[in-house]
Every structure is written in C-alpha cells, then in structure tokens.
C-alpha cells in the first residue's frame, strides 16, 4: 500500500512530468495559453498515458529488447489514432480546439518516457496507477500554467472576463518565453512545497 501511495505522490509532485522530469515541455508551451484548451489537452494525454502504460506493461515479456522503441511508438500511435477518431465522432467541439495538437501526442515525450522508464519494468496495476498519477500531475500543472498565462495575457479565465479591462494584457505571457518563465516559477514553488513536506515528515519520525 505504501508503494502505491509513493507512485501516486511521485507522479503528482515529486516526479511531476512537467516540472521535475521536464518531459513534454514543448507541446505544453503551445497549448497552455487558454485554460480550457489546456484542461482538454491534459485529459487527452492522461487517457493515452494510462492506456499505453497498461498495454505496454502487459506486452513487456513479448516485446524484444532490441526493437522495443518502434514497438512502443506503434502502440502509442495506434492509441492516439483511436482517440482522435472517438473524439471526432462524439465530441466534435473538443476535437476542433485540440485536434491539431492531438496527432502530436504520438511524439509526446511523457508517454514514451513513462513506457521506457516505468511500464516496461512494473506490474500492470502499478503501471496503470503511474499513468493515472502522471496524467493528473501533468493536467494540473498544465491547467495552472494556462490559467496564469491566460489571466495576464488576455485578462480572462476559462474564457470569462475577470479583470473588466482594469489591467492591460501583457502579451509576453502568451509567447513561449513567458510560458517558460511561468513554468520555472511553478517548479520553484513545487520544490519548496516538497522540501518543506519532507522536512515535516522527518520531524515526525
């Protein structure tokens, strides 16, 4: 049980894919200027992450070590294509806003990185949990980043006007350097939180 809790906390905070492992930063920068797009994108990536982690963990004895990378990419690409078709059929509105980025999920480092570093060495249940917690950590940070960028860049939050024209939008936040800056500050915040949590844990012992 303790191990399960560790996997969950690793994905959410201590090994957060965006802020600690620095995986998939590039696509996140381009999608995180609108909070609602970021949320949708995060959910789509999480879905792929869970399914591909489960499948690759189940196939880990069958896939030969020498050709594992093309095998991973094939499985991930298949899942992404399936997701695109489902989304286009049942949620066309979401597809219109995140569709262009979705096909690039195939080459999102988080999914391949977790397949290589976790799913290929762990049990199916643990891999599913890892996919879930990593996805949750990714979605949370992506949405928070997008909220900060949207607030300062457009003066809106989830598309609603919250500043009533009182502040002048700063377009630097909408550009990639602004995104990197917001991510850097969030990374420092997460580091501070996990450091103080570890300190408290140490005192209790």
């Amino acid at each position, binding site marked *: 049980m303790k191990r399960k809790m560790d996997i969950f906390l690793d994905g959410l905070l201590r090994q957060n894919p965006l802020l600690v492992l620095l995986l998939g930063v590039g696509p996140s920068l381009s999608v995180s200027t609108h909070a609602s797009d970021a949320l949708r994108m995060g959910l789509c990536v999480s879905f792929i992450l869970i399914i591909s982690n489960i499948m690759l963990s189940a196939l880990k004895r069958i896939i030969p070590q020498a050709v594992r*990378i*093309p095998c991973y990419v094939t499985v991930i690409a298949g899942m992404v294509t399936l997701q695109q078709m489902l989304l286009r059929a049942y949620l066309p509105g979401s597809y219109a806003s995140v569709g262009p980025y979705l*096909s690039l999920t195939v080459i999102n480092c988080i999914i*391949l*990185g977790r397949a290589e570093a976790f799913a290929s060495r762990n049990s199916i249940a643990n891999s599913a949990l890892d996919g879930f917690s990593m996805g949750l950590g990714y979605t949370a940070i992506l949405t928070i980043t997008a909220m900060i960028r949207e607030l300062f860049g457009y003066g809106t939050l989830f598309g609603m006007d919250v500043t009533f024209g009182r502040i002048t939008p700063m377009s630097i936040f909408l550009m990639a*350097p602004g995104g*990197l800056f917001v*991510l850097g500050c969030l990374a420092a915040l997460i*580091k501070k939180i996990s450091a103080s949590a570890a300190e408290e844990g140490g005192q209790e012992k």
Partner: protein
Amino acid sequence: MRSLLWVIMSAVLANNLVLVKFQGLTPFLGTTGRLRSALHMSLITWGLMTAGTAITWPLQHFVIGPKGLDYMSVVIFALVIAALVQFMERVIKSLKPGILEELGIYPVLLAANSAVLGVCTDSMLASTGYGDAVFTAFGAGLGFFIAMMMFAGIQERIEDNDIPESFRGVPATLIAAAIVSLSFMGFYGIVDGIFGM
C-alpha cells in the same frame, strides 16, 4: 539551391529549432547540465536529423504522396525515426557503451522528439530536391548543436552563482531558457535582411 551561408545563419539565428520554434526542449533542458553530455546528445541528435530526412524524403515523395497517405505521415515518420533511434542505440552500445549510461533515458526519448520530426517535415516543405532537403536538415542540426552548447555554457555559469534554494536546478534552467529565447527573438528578420536574396 540557396547559399550555404544563408542556410546555416538562418538555422542558427533566426529559425533556431529550440530557442525560436521550441521544438526538442526535452534534451535541451534535460542534458545541458554538463557540457560533456550536451556535446554527446547534440551530436546524436544532429546525426539523427540528417539521417531521418535522408530516409523520409524518398518515402514522402514515392510512397506517401502518390498513395494519398498524408493523414498517416506523422505516424510513418515517427516509426522511421523510432527505428533509427533503435539502430543508433545498438551502434553506440557496441562502440562506446559509456555514453548511453551517462545520458540515461534521453537517447531513447529522441524517438519522441518534436525537433527531429519537425526537421524531417520542414526540410521536406522548404526544399526543392533531395540534396537540398538533406542539406537543410544538416543546417538545422547545426543550429540545434550550437544552441545546446551555448546553453550548456550558460548552465555552468549559473551553477557558480548564489541563487535561492528553491530556484536551484530545474527552475533556474527554465527561467534561463526563457531569457535566452527572448534574446533570440531579436534575431527575427535579421538573416533575410543581411544574407537574403
């Protein structure tokens, strides 16, 4: 065929993959902590971009284009690159196994690197012939190499400074990348202005 100087200057300054187009940030942020690993990583990526374009160009022009498989091109290119990465991993393992241990998971992640895929598609669009496409990819790889080396140098300088505890490591790297990319925006248009034809 555009001049050599134009291709190189535009890849290094105005269209720099990492700092202007924000592709391939994972190895850029992850392996530039040490100059040695940055050197190995960027050489691997450079070779991969050139080889990838050399293979995907005929694939695009003789298979994907004529058969109308454009909707599959990302998947097909990703597979070709993944196979190349696997091949490269085996070659390095037999020649210099130390490099793989030093770089950890990053060489494998090149299979999911948007810079490598981006170079393959971009040089396809921007070029007229096979030689031109491979050469453009080579130039883009050089731009990646120079950005990696430069940022590795900056990171070594950052380590000498006294920065607040929470900002050490990853946060400082991200903010430094933000400032460097901001300064690269100043090069916008400069290459066409000076070397353009």
